[in-house]
């Protein structure tokens, strides 16, 4: 299963592991996204060195690979913090008080949305809809969905994420 941000500890960049990831998917139809997901699952980000390996394996230009990596919001070009807290910033959550919670999270972590706290502990990221719109506002901590967010529940998440 491909999952955007699971709770696993990621391996450091390793060329041989990367090649194995690429080989595992290269013969599928439209292999590029599955390969990129596999690499990110393994290392937590897409190392620049992987672009050339993929380009060679799929017989496409490195520019093409780079263009795809940078097009999609999910693909990271450097590792995230130890925990990733995504706050939904879309309309249903705005209607339910999401703006105030986003400001509160920024203040408590001391970073603007889209950045990682100085100690590398928490990446605070916007997400545009988690499909939890009837239990808004919503968040996702390391792949775990959280609904009916209020300041108290958000504080508990932030405390958990900073441990």
């Amino acid at each position: 299963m491909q999952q955007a941000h699971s709770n696993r500890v990621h391996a450091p960049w390793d060329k041989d592991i990367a090649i194995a990831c690429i080989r595992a998917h290269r013969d599928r139809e439209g292999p590029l996204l599955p390969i990129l997901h596999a690499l990110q699952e393994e290392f937590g980000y897409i190392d620049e060195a992987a672009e050339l390996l993929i380009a060679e394996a799929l017989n496409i230009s490195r520019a093409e690979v780079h263009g795809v990596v940078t097009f999609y919001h999910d693909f990271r070009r450097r590792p995230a913090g130890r925990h990733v807290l995504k706050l939904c910033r879309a309309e249903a959550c705005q209607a339910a008080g999401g703006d105030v919670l986003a400001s509160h999270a920024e203040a408590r972590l001391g970073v603007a949305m889209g950045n990682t706290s100085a100690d590398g502990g928490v990446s605070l990221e916007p997400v545009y809809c988690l499909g939890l719109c009837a239990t808004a506002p919503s968040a996702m901590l390391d792949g775990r969905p959280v609904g009916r967010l209020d300041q108290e529940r958000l504080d508990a998440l932030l405390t958990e994420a900073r441990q």
Partner: protein
Amino acid sequence: MTLRLFISRDAAAIAVGAEEVTAAIRAAAARQNVAVEIVRTGSRGLYWLEPMVEASTPGGRVAYGPVAPRDAEDLLGALIGGGFHALRLGPTEEIPWLKRQTRLTFARCGLVDPRSLDDYRAHAGAKGLERALALGPAAIVEEVAQSGLRGRGGAGFPTGVKWRTAAQIEAPQKYIVCNADEGDSGTFADRMIMEGDPFVLIEGMVIASIAVGATKGYVYIRSEYPHAAAAMEAAIAAARRSGLLGSRIAGSSFAFDMEVRVGAGAYVCGEETSLLDSLEGKRGQVRVKPPLPAHKGLFGRPTVINNVLSFASVPIILDRGGAFYRDFGMGSSRGTMPIQLAGNIKHGGLFETAFGITLGELVEDIGSGTRSGRPVRAVQVGGPLGAYFPRTLFDTPFDYEAFAARDGLIGHGGVVVFDDTVDMAKQARFAMEFCAFESCGKCTPCRVGSTRGMEVIDRIVRGENRAANTALLEDLCNTMKFGSLCALGGFTPYPVMSALNYFPEDFGAPSRLQAAE
């Protein structure tokens, strides 16, 4: 005697504590030495009552909710004693909010174990496929056409026409693609089906494959839905084991297999041609049409690409007949629509009903107004590209044409409620900001227009040359509406212009009330 309980494993139920409640009940059962069997289902869609616990009784299922872990001990006691509990909601099917719905597409959601194909079959599953195999390809297409089913993703294109087009073309390879890139805020129906009744989607895609002669299918699921992707993976594996997928579908001569592909956080990939490019491993950029995907779709092959709800509606259409489905609805909006009530709403969730119900009934009667208790001020229908409707338009019936006639759209059926604290100029600006953030960059009106739009709205709100800048914003919206390649740039003007037209006072203009004085 074993106590049989049902608790949702739907992501939104998990988000409000369904796992903790399940664990607490198991622990309480161990302490009280009670045998319990807990079936993890999808959600019934009554989200303000989640986590909901249902108990099997001789008279059918009885619901309790919303249950917290601390309720486990005495809830279990009440269930054994058959006595009263403060959280008792009565027989699930008799809860008015559920009882007044017409559940065709969502008939099994919340009822069955989504991991069990046997449970699916025990609840009338796979009957559509059975009839489809007896009918044959051409008659399947006619049945779907006769049902009046229109694309539930938002565009509302007749599904039968799409299938007929793909069926008529000769090609060595055709594809069935399911668009499960449900990115609209306020929508979660696709997620619920995939998590709560994944086999109905598989069955719908299998029927489509027989109808058009395709042998390979993909479900493109957004990465924000890891639970849905896991549920689909499990269901596909089970379907393969039982021969519902494979080289001989249900023992017939038809072959079809499918797999899950996960997106990577690009809203624009919900647009069908961007989705196809993304599946091919490219940047998710919009294609110029024609050619239509039915002619040249995935890898240049004829492709039927439909939304989750469209495919999921097909099995019941085949099982009960196109005319049965067509009998629901109004005008040229036939059948039922799974409407999603969201945002600042007291009773939010999935409400499937025949087309024709008014927006006011949905928001005030069924949704019971805002959760904050403040007056409703605006309702955005159809996701981030849908118009903001004021209360004065609450008589609009839920119907493709009725919403279009009022410069709005029903889209994928999301209804997001805002109370009177909303700043509509801020919402208009957000619509432009979202468009700028998600634009694929291929066409100029969307790519550049969205950023210029934010700037113009900022100037209007600051009071700089208000009249001239308002005219400029209207002109820009016209350019985006008519000049963009797809609905992202083309429909962003709906939320912007509706906010400006119905709530001018939020943009610093004198309110209509003040103007009248």
